[in-house]
């Protein structure tokens, strides 16, 4: 199978995934209890004619499939509609909050990768030692700390008591933003770090026990080279898979951390818009997240053959 064809198939798959998801989300919002009109009229008691006008204005009077079609048609042209909650175009609403979330997730990802693989590797190499014990303890404790608890702890110690970090806001300028985002990123990634550490540790222990590794080591092959070429490389498969899933899921699990640190990102935006039935924003956000999910997993899939040549051979066979 040629590379072009494989790529085409993947693209088609992505498009289909997005289409199906958009339909599912559209229908689930349609079926959700509560009437968006009741939010639109807020403290007023409009007469039936006014209600009908509002319904017409927002297209609530059209049949479901037609509404979906209109939305899909506009979305295909890059128009995701207008948020009735924020009185702005959806693209502007999301665009204003996306960079903060991306930075948060990126920093968290780096933390997860560095700490997770580092600590996991250390534990595997020193298996049974005190260091390994410490790593295992860290993993157990880390996995048990929900992000909101970590957020409170970090905020009160490093923000309020020590005053090293700001407790609120996104910051401006890259350095200031990093300064603002570090505590939230740690709070967000504690559990995930523990998870990746555990996967790394067990995966590397598994590889360390393999015959070819033991043979290479006993024959006096350079330890570092063996670790890099045979142990880490073979262990990377599960690590990358788990990390990919975690990262793409993180984009929307940021709401609690964002709120705790007074940041505005798409996590809290999603919660707010779901609660207030702001269809347009929710729809666009879900698509965005699904796209990110597909993208990250595609990247993982593309990385796989590089890590493990056997996969590449299987695919071209």
């Amino acid at each position, binding site marked *: 199978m040629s590379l072009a064809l494989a790529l085409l198939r993947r693209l088609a798959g992505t498009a289909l995934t997005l289409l199906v998801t958009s339909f599912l989300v559209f229908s689930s919002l349609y079926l959700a209890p509560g009437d968006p009109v*009741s*939010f639109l*009229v807020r*403290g007023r*008691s409009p007469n039936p004619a006014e209600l009908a006008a509002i319904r017409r204005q927002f297209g609530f009077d059209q049949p479901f499939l037609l509404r979906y079609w209109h939305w899909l048609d506009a979305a295909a042209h890059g128009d995701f509609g207008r948020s009735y909650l924020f*009185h702005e175009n959806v693209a502007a609403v999301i665009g*204003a909050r996306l960079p903060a979330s991306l930075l948060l997730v990126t920093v968290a990802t780096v933390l997860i990768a560095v700490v997770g693989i580092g600590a996991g590797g250390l534990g595997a190499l020193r298996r049974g030692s005190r260091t390994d014990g410490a790593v295992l303890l860290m993993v157990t404790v880390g996995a048990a700390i929900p992000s909101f608890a970590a957020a409170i702890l970090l905020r009160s110690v490093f923000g309020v008591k020590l005053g090293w970090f700001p407790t609120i806001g*996104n910051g401006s300028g890259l350095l200031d933003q990093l300064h603002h985002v570090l505590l939230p990123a740690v709070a967000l990634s504690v559990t995930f770090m523990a998870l990746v550490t555990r996967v790394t540790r067990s995966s590397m222990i598994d590889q360390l026990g393999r015959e070819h590794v033991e043979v290479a080591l006993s024959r006096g092959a350079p330890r570092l080279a063996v670790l890099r070429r045979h142990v880490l490389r073979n262990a990377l498969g599960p690590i990358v898979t788990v990390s990919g899933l975690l990262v793409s899921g993180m984009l929307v699990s940021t709401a609690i951390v964002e709120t*705790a*640190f007074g940041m505005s990102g798409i996590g809290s935006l999603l919660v707010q818009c779901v609660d207030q039935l702001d269809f347009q924003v929710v729809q666009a956000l879900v698509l965005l997240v699904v796209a990110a999910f597909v993208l990250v997993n595609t990247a993982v899939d593309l990385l796989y053959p590089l890590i493990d040549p056997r996969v590449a051979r299987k695919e071209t066979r």
Partner: protein
Amino acid sequence: MTRPRRAALAALAGVFALTSCSGTAKPGPSTDAAAYQLTDRTAPGGELDSFTWSLFAEPVSIDYALSFDYPPNTVLANVCESLLRWNPDLTTSPGLATAFTNPTPTTWVYTIREGVHFHDGAPLTAEDVVASLRRNLDPAVGSDWAYPFRNVKSVEKTGPMQVTVTLNTPDATFNEYLAAAPGTVESAAALQAAGKDYGNPSKGVDCTGPFSFAGWTPGQSITLKRYDDYWDKSLRAKAKQVKFVFLPDATARVNAFQSGEVDGGWMVPADSYKQLGASAKGRLYYGRSTTVADEVVSNLQGPLGDARVRQALLMAIDRKGIVKAGVGGVGEVADALVTRNNWNNSPKDTVDSLLGGLKQYPYDPAKAKELAASAGVNGQKVVIASSPLDSQSTIITQAVQQAATAIGLKPEIDSISPDKYTALFTDPAARKGIDLFETFWYTSITDPLDMYGSLQTGAFSNYGNWSDPQFDAALNEAVGAADPAARATATAKAQQIAMDQLPWLPLYTEPVSVFLGNRITGLQPSIDYLYYPWAATVGAKG
């Protein structure tokens, strides 16, 4: 009318406050009647470059027609002005109108102030006033303030600087509402230019207040700049800039006060009164308010349809206990659905004689049980809707549940999400199967009619569809009365009926709370901050 949304947004803040273990306020040993005192004004401040203020939520718009909630009005009060002005002592004085007359009961004539300029430099004209007021009548705008304008027939320019509003029926409250957001005057040209983007983060607003709109970073902050050509020299802003930051998490807000990142904020979480009262970073003040915590009876078809059961329920609620445990003693048991402050515009001697004879419901569970039994209460189910708004809401719910049990009802608590809680105030379908829910109801004008009008037969906020012909008659008489004393008498009669029949159960009044960091001073703590340019007087300390 009111503030469904306060419950809403404060609610959202509360959920996170709970997850962050802010804890519930415990009844302190030292909570007594002198737990707090009201402050009229703090020491005047000097010139200041900038200060930062917290909002518990981001406004969805600062279009005055869509501003009917604490966050947008807190900001907008400093940027846009109304024809009349609501002062810190809750009296009303001229604003963008220098005078008004009421030649016939249904005609109100306003003289527009000369020499006022919008932030873009254009002069204020009668056309601007007409265009601004008419938006409250336009279904396409969907103004939150359509209710105060319900009796308006037309808004016309009747002179170079004169605007006349004609009503369908006499309504003295219409004129009073012009001191709040419904009386806001925006430049007609700005309205035209911004179109449906008016008041959103990219377009903002262009008004006449002491501050101008300088920028809005969605999700983060709104910045205002001092307007140097402001017409009222006595309220020229001391600060060059104000930055409003959105902090939905109550604990994050308190932390930001404590770390000095934020200089202050209105509506301090009740469970932080103690902590902030003892803060080294600033001071906590309490001010005049029109807020009453009520338990709304939203179903009169069930056991609560009998007035005796409602009376028994109120008698069985330990309201002193709620004030002590829920708000650390910062509040008073309420004897009506409005505060005494709401009567400030009525002749004082009339008021004293009028409000004396209100029916009281002192805490007496035994007597309450007897009364309920005589009304046939015998283990009927009542559903209390509740949402983890904040610690005081939780304590109110528990107290009401206890009281319902004490008089022989079988209370059931229905916990719903904060945003669904908001829907209780707007969506009859959401209220289905709910007998009771709580609210913190404030009035946007000093007049008690603002509250009692919402209990009239068929009114939007009459959630239990309560109806009493005598109450309606008294209310109609009050709304149509031009003479303040006559209006007060008729309103007091309506209040008397409401307190006998208890369509809602009054729980307690609470003052406005505000935290001021050590850098700033000059604020006048009062609920008028929703419509009065309160930030103008805030300046540097020392």
